[in-house]
């Protein structure tokens, strides 16, 4: 039957047989148009709003066909309702009503996409426009109907093209990538990397936890290698996953926070090569399956590391709940008691298993997509792996998200036998649930004959605070429960069984371990040391150094609304920590340092920063950290072009250092000063503030390269609690390291040093200037270093020498 809309103003379309279908045609037109614009808008604005990445619901390119489909269904339902209504009430102005509903809903839809108006304002404006236009639609029914009829086929064509093109283009790309894979070396095993999001090591029974939370992981640990003291590179998901897949520390990639995103797919967000790319060159087919769709997904830059990636849209409910009308349904309709009872009656309570992923309070959208559970991850990966061995071995990375808050596993999950009163109890429920999923996955792999030729790695991306230090959740800080993660390798017959390695290692060594240990030519040398050396010949001690870091958190708007934390957090400034076989030094940019003996005090309840035994440790660990930031293993020998900048014995010295070529700033200056002198040192970037500025760190060492302990930081002395002042502002009792003079000014550092020693002979002090971020400064970067003797204790003979040549 051909559909027509009448073209004259004298005959009403609603009176003809085809005219009765006008609401349906309008619904199709508005539904497709609204959905296409909505899909594009959601993709566009999530990139524009990359600073709010953590508090918004995300989508990827399939939204381009999902949104029109959902909108089409909504609008057609309304049209059907109107047509039914017109049969019951013959006087119903169907055309006007259709215009009112479709215009209002379309405008409401589009206004919500940028999230720059409150919902109530969007609603009023949309209803206003709908009312205004519907009142005039009666007179212009035919002029409206004509263009709608003519343009509808074009819209339908575009919609169908998108519906076909988006899924097919991905499949085509995957097919092409698989066809281009080289043959793998004989003996190349499958590799399954299981990242358990938010799993702290001390809640895994293989790590000595009193509850049997992880019988399946324990079995793998007994049959493989367990690293007792693995340290994550950070304490939250995005940079932790970057480190796990690239081997880089966040400061090396500049990916401590979500990076600015191009409006369209242009360039790589994660610059460093990923282990998946390395293994593809060795003939591996690669895939990732992520349940943490906020911080481990294709759109955030992880796509290049995998041929196949499954993140969003794992179910129809997930698809619908990410569209605008789906979000509104979840927000307004779903929480009502009637709906809840109906869902319970239908035994679909799982529909209320919401994710932590959400739009935050700041955006007024309290909507949640459904949570992607471990069982779904198992189903996805097993479907992708296939029932029989393929031509290429696989490399699969899984992210299980069930340990993450909200704790407890799925609502339908039978809770373990322990109590359910405490936060830690529910956290353990999630651990047990993930362990069950891992157990089922391993059993299925064994049933498919892949149990003996698959290397399995189990690792946590970061830990979780369960009330220690007054903190919950993760990010925020770098305490031991946040960075101590499980790390287990399992490959029976190829990796020794029952080995427990005590040495402190970084989980970021995973890529270099896989790259160097798996068969095939190494294409890219990942940073760090291969852990395979440790299971081949385990060292008896814990000695080893790991770094963890946390960038300044100026982005997560929802955290800004929380109450003041009782300890220094990333909301006040960036943090770095160095972990040795016994000690854990946490350096905070604004609030000073903390030192813990994690071996005897794993909960880190006692800060030893001012204890006598801690002073030397602080100096050593600080130096280790600065060496690491400066590019690892810098040479410190040989002063070149030592120029006496102070031949006249002035008490004020200035020196400007300019870089002629890009380099990591790691400069030494020699200061001759009489013992007892109080000298104020300052470093100022002369070029700029902001992202490109030198974020200077000032340290004072003795001739043996030890950080001195005779300094005063008026701004961050002695770890004052947030909002409190320095208790001993005049005391020279700090480690001689300083970063920012004050929050918000990152390009200047100041430190007062009391020159140690006795007698009249000048002492030699080395002043070290480096960059907190360890990055390469651009050519032309210049800074000024000044030294001033304190007025109250002038000491003649203070001299600042020229810079010391390094490497």
């Amino acid at each position, binding site marked *: 039957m051909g559909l027509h809309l009448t073209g004259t103003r004298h005959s009403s379309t609603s009176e003809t047989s085809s005219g009765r279908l006008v609401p349906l045609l309008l619904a199709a037109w508005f539904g497709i148009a609204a959905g296409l614009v909505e899909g594009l808008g959601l993709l566009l604005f999530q990139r524009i709003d990359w600073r709010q990445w953590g508090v918004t619901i995300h989508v990827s390119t399939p939204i381009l066909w999902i949104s029109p489909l959902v909108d089409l269904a909504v609008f057609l339902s309304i049209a059907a309702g109107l047509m039914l209504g017109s049969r019951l009430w013959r006087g119903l102005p169907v055309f006007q009503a259709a215009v009112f509903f479709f215009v209002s809903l379309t405008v409401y839809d589009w206004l919500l996409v940028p999230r720059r108006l409150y919902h109530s*304002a969007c609603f009023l*404006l949309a209803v206003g426009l709908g009312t205004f236009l519907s*009142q005039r639609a009666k007179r212009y029914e035919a002029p409206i109907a004509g263009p709608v009829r003519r343009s509808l086929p074009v819209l339908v064509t575009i919609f169908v093209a998108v519906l076909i093109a988006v899924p097919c283009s991905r499949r085509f790309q995957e097919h092409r990538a698989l066809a281009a894979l080289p043959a793998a070396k004989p003996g190349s095993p499958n590799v399954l990397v299981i990242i358990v999001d938010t799993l702290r090591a001390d809640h895994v029974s293989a790590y000595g936890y009193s509850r049997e939370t992880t019988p399946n992981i324990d079995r793998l640990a007994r049959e493989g290698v367990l690293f007792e003291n693995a340290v994550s590179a950070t304490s939250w998901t995005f940079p932790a996953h970057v480190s796990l897949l690239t081997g880089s520390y966040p400061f090396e990639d500049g990916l401590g926070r979500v990076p600015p995103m191009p409006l369209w797919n242009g360039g790589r967000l994660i610059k460093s090569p990923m282990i998946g790319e390395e293994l593809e060159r060795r003939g591996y087919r690669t895939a990732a399956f992520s349940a943490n769709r906020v911080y481990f997904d294709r759109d955030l830059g992880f796509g290049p590391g995998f041929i196949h990636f499954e993140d969003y849209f794992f179910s129809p409910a997930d698809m619908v709940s990410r569209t605008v009308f789906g979000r509104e349904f979840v927000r307004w309709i779903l929480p009502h008691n009637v709906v809840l009872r109906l869902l319970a009656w239908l035994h679909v309570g799982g529909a209320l298993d919401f994710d932590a992923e959400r739009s935050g309070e700041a955006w007024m959208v309290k909507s949640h997509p459904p949570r992607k559970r471990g069982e779904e991850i198992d189903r996805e990966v097993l479907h992708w792996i296939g029932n029989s061995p393929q031509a290429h071995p696989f490399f699969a990375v899984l992210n299980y998200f069930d340990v993450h808050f909200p704790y407890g596993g799925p609502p339908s999950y039978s809770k373990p036998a322990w109590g359910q009163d405490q936060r830690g109890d529910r956290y353990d429920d999630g651990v047990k649930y993930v362990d069950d999923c891992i157990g089922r996955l391993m059993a299925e792999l064994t049933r498919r004959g892949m149990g003996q030729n698959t290397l399995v790695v189990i690792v946590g991306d970061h830990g979780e605070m369960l009330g220690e230090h007054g903190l919950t959740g993760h990010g925020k800080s770098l305490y031991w429960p946040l960075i101590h993660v499980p790390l287990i390798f399992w490959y029976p017959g190829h990796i020794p069984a029952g080995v427990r390695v005590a040495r402190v290692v970084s989980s970021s060594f995973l890529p270099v371990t896989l790259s160097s240990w798996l068969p095939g030519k190494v294409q890219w040398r990942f940073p760090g040391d291969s852990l395979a050396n440790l299971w081949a010949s385990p060292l008896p001690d814990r000695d080893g150094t790991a770094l963890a870091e946390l960038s300044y958190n100026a982005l997560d708007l929802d955290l800004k609304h929380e109450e003041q934390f009782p300890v220094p957090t990333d909301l006040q400034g960036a943090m770095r920590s160095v972990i040795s076989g016994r000690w854990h030094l946490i350096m905070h940019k604004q609030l000073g340092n903390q030192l813990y003996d994690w071996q005897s005090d794993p909960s880190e309840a006692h800060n030893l920063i001012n204890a006598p035994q801690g002073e030397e440790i602080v100096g050593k660990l600080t130096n280790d950290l600065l060496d690491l930031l400066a590019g690892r293993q810098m040479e410190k020998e040989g002063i070149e072009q030592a120029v006496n900048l102070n031949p006249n014995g002035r008490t004020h010295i200035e020196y400007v250092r300019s870089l002629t070529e890009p380099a990591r700033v790691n400069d030494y200056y020699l200061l001759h000063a009489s013992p007892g002198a109080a000298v104020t040192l300052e470093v100022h970037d002369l070029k700029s503030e902001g992202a490109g500025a030198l974020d200077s760190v000032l340290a004072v060492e003795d001739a043996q390269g030890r950080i001195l302990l005779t300094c005063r930081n008026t701004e961050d002395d002695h770890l004052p609690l947030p909002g409190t002042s320095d208790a001993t502002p005049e005391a020279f009792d700090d480690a001689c390291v300083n970063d920012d003079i004050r929050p918000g000014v990152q390009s200047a550092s100041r430190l007062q040093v009391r020159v140690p020693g006795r007698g009249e002979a000048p002492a030699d002090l080395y002043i070290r200037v480096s960059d907190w971020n360890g990055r390469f400064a651009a050519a032309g970067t210049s800074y000024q270093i000044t030294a001033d003797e304190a007025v109250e204790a002038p000491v003649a003979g203070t001299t600042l020498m020229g810079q010391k040549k390094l490497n």
Partner: protein
Amino acid sequence: MQVLLAYYGGPDQIMTVTSGFAGVVGLLLIFWNKVVAAFFRVVRIFRPTASDPVPAKDENETLKETS
């Protein structure tokens, strides 16, 4: 265009202002016919036009004018 960009790039606090403005516009549109009618009613009060009927003068005043 620049106004739109400023509106989008502005701080979150601006949402209150823009939302209030959008809400008022929406209300005006919903009651547009009444708003227009009320507007012209007000206009007519202050600026009577030539087409408006001239009010009949008081008989006494007519007498005063002619005397």
